[in-house]
């Protein structure tokens, strides 16, 4: 395996951001489920502890989100997220077809990764949705619930806190589903562990795919 086949995809700042985000979100999901579904007879952990941990992890992930935004602004990493709407549907279809059939026929990936392409079209769309819609939505609603006095009291007779909380829980659920799929798709490759190694050491091995 020579170094020409490796691309330095994940600089240090990005790996730090990703690491904090990953751990933070795991804590948020675990404590969030505990707060939403605990009953006197069943609980994963102490409610009070769950609330405190959720608040701390939430603040940490929110601050960490700034690293993601500024990191992308200051480096060329943002280029990988650029999406062309023209032909997007076709490109998405090709990628879905590859994951559902082509992969099993040992066909080549329709959008092989290179210095210029870090994400396939499916990744682009899902990462954009999660990082620029779901996570900011969670940060904003989460800050609102942390400081409820900031929330508009009533929106057409419906409690503002109620709306914020339902939106927060729904977005949290969508991020949980993203996490499951994200972890699974990351295991697709020559060896299931390759992508996990990459996000730790920074290098993406082209031979590993």
């Amino acid at each position, binding site marked *: 395996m020579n170094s020409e086949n490796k691309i330095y995809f994940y600089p240090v700042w990005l790996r730090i951001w990703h690491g904090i985000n990953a751990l933070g979100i795991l804590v948020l999901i675990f404590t969030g489920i505990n707060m*939403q579904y605990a009953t006197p007879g069943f609980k994963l952990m102490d*409610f009070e502890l769950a609330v405190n941990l959720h608040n701390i992890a939430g603040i940490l992930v929110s601050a960490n989100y700034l690293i993601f935004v500024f990191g992308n602004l200051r480096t060329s990493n943002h280029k990988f997220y650029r999406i062309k709407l023209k032909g997007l549907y076709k490109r998405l279809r090709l990628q879905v077809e590859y994951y559902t059939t082509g992969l099993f026929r040992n066909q080549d990936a329709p959008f092989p990764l290179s210095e210029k392409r870090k994400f396939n079209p499916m990744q682009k769309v899902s990462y954009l949705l999660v990082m620029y819609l779901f996570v900011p939505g969670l940060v904003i609603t989460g800050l609102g619930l942390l400081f409820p006095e900031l929330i508009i009291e009533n929106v057409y007779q419906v409690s503002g806190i109620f709306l914020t*909380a339902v939106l927060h829980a729904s977005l949290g659920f969508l991020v949980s589903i993203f996490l499951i799929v994200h972890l699974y798709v990351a295991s697709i490759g020559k060896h299931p562990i390759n992508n996990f190694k990459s996000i730790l050491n920074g290098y993406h091995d082209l031979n590993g795919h």
Partner: protein
Amino acid sequence: MLKSGLTSASSFNSPAMRSSFLFFIVLILFLGFSKSSQALAPENESCLKCHTHQTITFHNTLTKREDKRLMNPLYILDKDHFASGVHAKFKCIDCHSADYSKYPHNAELKLEPLSTCLDCHGGDAKYAAYQFEKIDLEFQKSVHFQKSGDSFTCSKCHNQHYYQAKSRNSSEVGDIVKFSNEMCMSCHSNNSKFQLISDKLKPALSQIHEWLPNQELHFLNVRCIECHTQVVDSLSVSHNILPKEKALKNCVECHSKNSMLEASLYKYKNLQSRSKIGKLNSIIKNKSYVIGAYQNIWLNYISILILILALAGISIHVIARIIKK
């Protein structure tokens, strides 16, 4: 004629219409403003003449002069507040001695025992729904009665002059909470009243509740009695105030699907809204949100379905990868 008067601007502008409109407005204002004083018994006028004012003027029979003095603030009644209370129609002498009609009042009248709530409310079929006897039994178990006995009267919390049956009649949970907590606060945030039954200083409430997350939000949205009483299903408001060691400290009792609040704070609200606006509306129109207590069945189903689909998709993919390896 009335119809044309209402629909045509020109006839509204006529002097006759304008004057009757003005009369109508004045009548409404008059009725509105006079409502509170009308609600009070006219016999109370002579008492309220002094007991609603900061100063009193009387003829001093010894000095033969007109004296103007400050009224004891403890004996000044808020007339409007009284008029909105449950006993608004009562005559003062229904509860106080008729001898108070003489001035200066005889000092010994202060020693006269006042009627207790049960003297009127006990065994009265009209108030059967309030279950005063049961309230009394529950109250006798409470830490207030255990520590102070009979000297802790109903009126220590329920001011006879201003009391309103809020938890039964108000449709605003926030209103119920405020009214209820003010009863507790009248002593627990006032050292001089607190020391009527204790030799100690009142405990600093924000300090002893430091463990409670979002303390201020809890204080505004739930009643003290939510955690500090033993809930009795058959009673509207629980009266067995527990000693502080026995107060509820388990968050999940409220923050769960079968929230305890349904049986306490939201009990009357639930009963009212079920008949009037339906369960969904009553949940949505609540001014507050209790984490964990609100679970929408449809959102739950949809989320479980999405989760199952995601896991099923992944499982099928894993199996296909293993087979094709």
